[in-house]
């Protein structure tokens, strides 16, 4: 830990950052708050509405449905990507030329524009011309993600696993490579089996990076928009309409600014709250 000196000049150093981020964060946030408590019939005429929109959003079936879908989606991808990512990181070579080959190839999906990810999976999963869709149907399973909600969800989850598991792998791998060889040697001498090594050496050392992996995957999956929008457009029906997709539909599609703004704020608060809960839960032990 670095011992810090009190120096109010610090504000000078952070001023450019504060100005730029505030410009992007504070003004739009005020706009959103402003809309969320007013009603408009166009022509820039607004009427104060208080918390009406908040009540409306919180009581709307549509919002509940989107929130439930969002929670289901985020829950599923966390349940798959975190254990899978850890397993892959454990199986990766620790030294040698294959390490950078693995890292480069695995990082590739992270660098593909999100709509291209959606488009790529659309082409890949189409039942008539896609490799995946064609293969599944050839196995005798009726699969069409543009028509069946089940297939759409399967494709959506698989796409996210494809897209983001590497992030967990890279983080977990970095955590693993920070473990000195002596720990493995000591464990060997102590007669520890593979499970004991994982449980008492590797997992504790990965805890910090895994906390970050879970937080990041939670936040990012909760905000996901582009990939499902391009892949399924929220369909078939509303079956894959996640929170962001619904929000954009309301705001830009129907131009219902009041409800959209209220929903935005509720949405943002949910992410903040859940992130905080996650973070507290995962770091609680360390404090003791």
């Amino acid at each position: 830990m670095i011992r810090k000196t009190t120096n109010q000049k610090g504000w000078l150093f952070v001023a450019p950052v504060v100005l730029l981020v505030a410009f992007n964060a504070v003004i739009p946030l005020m706009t959103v708050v402003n809309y969320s408590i007013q009603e408009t019939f166009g022509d820039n005429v607004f009427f104060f509405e208080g918390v009406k929109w908040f009540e409306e959003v919180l009581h709307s079936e549509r919002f509940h449905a989107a929130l439930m879908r969002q929670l289901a989606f985020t829950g599923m991808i966390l349940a798959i990507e975190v254990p899978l990512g850890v397993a892959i990181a454990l199986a990766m070579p620790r030294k040698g030329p294959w390490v950078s080959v693995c890292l480069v190839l695995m990082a590739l999906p992270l660098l593909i524009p999100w709509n291209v990810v959606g488009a790529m999976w659309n082409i890949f999963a189409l039942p008539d011309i896609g490799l995946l869709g064609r293969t599944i149907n050839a196995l005798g399973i009726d699969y069409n993600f543009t028509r069946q909600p089940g297939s759409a969800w399967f494709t959506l989850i698989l796409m996210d696993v494809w897209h983001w598991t590497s992030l967990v792998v890279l983080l977990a791998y970095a955590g693993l490579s920070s473990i000195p060889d002596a720990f493995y040697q000591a464990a060997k001498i102590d007669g520890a089996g593979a499970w004991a090594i994982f449980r008492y050496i590797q997992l504790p050392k990965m805890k910090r990076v895994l906390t970050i992996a879970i937080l990041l995957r939670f936040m990012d999956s909760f905000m996901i928009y582009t990939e499902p929008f391009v892949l399924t457009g929220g369909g078939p029906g509303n079956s894959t309409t996640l929170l962001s997709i619904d929000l954009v539909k309301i705001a830009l599609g129907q131009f219902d600014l009041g409800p959209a703004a209220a929903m935005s704020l509720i949405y943002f608060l949910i992410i903040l709250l859940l992130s905080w809960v996650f973070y507290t839960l995962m770091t609680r032990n360390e404090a003791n």
Partner: protein
Amino acid sequence: MTRYKWLVPALYIIFLMLPIYWLLNMSFKTTNEILGSFTLFPAEFTLDNYRKIFTDSTWYMGYVNSLTYVVINTVISVTVALPAAYAFSRYRFVGDKHLFFWLLTNRMAPPAVFALPFFQLYSAVGLFDTHIAVALAHCLFNIPLAVWILEGFMSGVPKELDETAYVDGYPFWRFFIKIFLPTIAAGIGVAAFFCFMFSWVELLLAKTLTSVEAKPIAATMTRTASTSGYELGLLAAAGTLTIIPGAFVIYFVRNYIAKGFALGRV
């Protein structure tokens, strides 16, 4: 068991490569072949799709636009984040912790929430449809990220380095540029990599803030997909080309990635 351990990453990488291969495969096919038959390799190998992209300015300008705002954003984000990260890692000042936390909350703001206000804000200041608009908008999530990563690296540099330099009579800015920055070069590389990455992959804000002049390649693709029907080969070629800049960047920073992640600051 350990003998077959390599199968796990190998199978995973194959899984990662399959959709990319399919995209590549399609990009070399004619529209007729894509729609008319199911082939694992292009039967009539064609470069027409790529030719179209490289000759039609609405296509290739998309790449130029994207790279332009991504580079501007990376430069801005890292430049302003450097002094801020230095202050967070070295000084204590009124409100520092709250400020740091507030910066990080912006990483949690869904772009969908900000799309419309951003459109209005940047229209109002007359920056709509410019590269700088997108570059500035992406600062919302990239600056907090860059500050976070750089602060991690800077905290790893002992304060004695600063003190020795002052004793040797270096003025602050000369010390910062000549001595301090080279010391955390790896951190700057990692921060720039992630800024590049998140700006390059983001579409919602980029699309909302542009119409013609600064339209990103990703937006060109979505519009093509929806308006001109089934030009899948062209779409696949355009998609393939968007992977290349990312692949280049990863290749150059491959040795730093693990290190950057190791700090757990992403």
